[in-house]
């Protein structure tokens, strides 16, 4: 697979343990109790969307559902709230995956923004129906920061796949 479809570079295949480790790392970042900091990104949603776009036959709605349940327990929110949002996110990202990789990174991030806004809208809608408090419009800043992080996370998570196929002892890097 290429970094983007218009690129000529062929990447190595992804390793399953790396996908698992990155999802666990994102979960750990999301569990850091930052309280009500507006604009703190949703790391799990970001990494989940990333792998749903890159490897949509390996990571999909089942992964989204499981991660969502864990987030519901950790966040002390209603069971199924994040699960529903992440399942829809995984479906949306999988659906976008044929299209989005034709674009340069900044425009990919623009594609991710409505996905993240949709995820937040789903959780907000569910909680408002359940009698929750409206968190205010600054809450949706998190979507923007998450979408912006799409660009660095692309390089970070593809780093192991950028390695050359044959190891060259004389190459400096």
């Amino acid at each position, binding site marked *: 697979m290429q970094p983007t479809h218009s690129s000529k570079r062929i990447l190595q295949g992804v390793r399953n343990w790396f996908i698992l480790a990155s999802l666990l790392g994102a979960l750990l970042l999301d569990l850091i109790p930052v309280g009500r900091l507006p604009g703190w990104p949703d790391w799990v949603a970001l990494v989940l969307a990333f792998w749903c776009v890159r490897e949509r036959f390996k990571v999909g709605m089942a992964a989204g559902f499981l991660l969502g349940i864990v987030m519901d*327990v950790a966040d002390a*929110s209603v*069971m199924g709230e994040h699960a529903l949002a992440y*399942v*829809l996110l995984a*479906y949306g990202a999988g659906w976008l995956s044929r299209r989005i990789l034709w674009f340069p990174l900044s425009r990919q991030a623009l594609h991710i923004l409505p996905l993240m806004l949709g995820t937040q809208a789903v959780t907000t809608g569910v909680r408002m129906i359940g009698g929750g*408090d409206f968190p205010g419009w600054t809450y949706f800043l998190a979507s923007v920061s998450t979408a912006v992080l799409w660009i660095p996370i692309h390089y970070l998570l593809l780093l192991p796949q950028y390695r050359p196929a044959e190891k060259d002892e004389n190459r400096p890097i």
Partner: protein
Amino acid sequence: MTVAGRDPPPFFRRGPAPFARLAFFVIVSLALLGLDLRQRYLEPLRQALTVVTYPLRTLALAPVQALREAGGYLAAHGTLRRENARLAEQTVRAAATLLRHEQLELENRQLRSLLAMRDRQPAKGVVAEVLYATRDAYSRKVVIDKGTRQAVRAGQVVIDDLGVIGQVTRAFPLTAEVTLITDREQAVPVQVRRNALRAVLFGAGDGLLELRYLAGNADVREGDELVTSGLDGIYLPGLAVGRVARLAREGTGAFARIFATPIAGVERDALVLVLGERVLPAAPPRDAVTPREQRPARARAGKK
């Protein structure tokens, strides 16, 4: 196309179609939502998952606590000395009240025994540290570091040095979730200290409280102190909760809109006290309550 009633062998096995999978997971999520919002059947699952993810959460808590400790380490010498002086002064002042309080308690007990009334339950509890505020943006909850292993149970009242901050809504083995009084779904039965007018206090969002269901001409003034009434059988009576900040008596409505600010440091506490469960006097026998009709006595247990 089928040949002789058989499908051709598939090249790629990919399971059910994406839309079918989406429908399945959405239905399961909605079922979970319904079960959790309406029936609360999922508490055992939540308990189990909380225990399983405990190491992960402890790991995630480490940077925050390190930051907090670093902040404490770097606190200026002058700040610490000022705080020390202030605390010493506070102790002395508290000692005077405490001495008088003991004497008053004694006197109160004597008077109560004269009146043959029941003793008021003394406040006992567990000191707990607030670990963090939950990230759930739609409710106001904090997590404390004491759980069912330290005899913290759901329903117990949590206070700080000034007044009530909330109620334990979920107790896990090592931690517990406290819903703050500023949460929209949290209700505290209170009375106005000045004239013992009873009402129910709800969270109003934005760190405010709202006194609901009071008539437009109710005798409430700005600055009135609201204390727990103890009618619910959960809160001990007489704990400070809030102070009336703003009154809006609109001409049309039958109810006044009364907003209050919490007295306790509800959203900025570090150390709190979880009060022990309140022991209620035994209900009178049924025959005595309903001598004529065979109506069942109404349960006095509180909400949540």
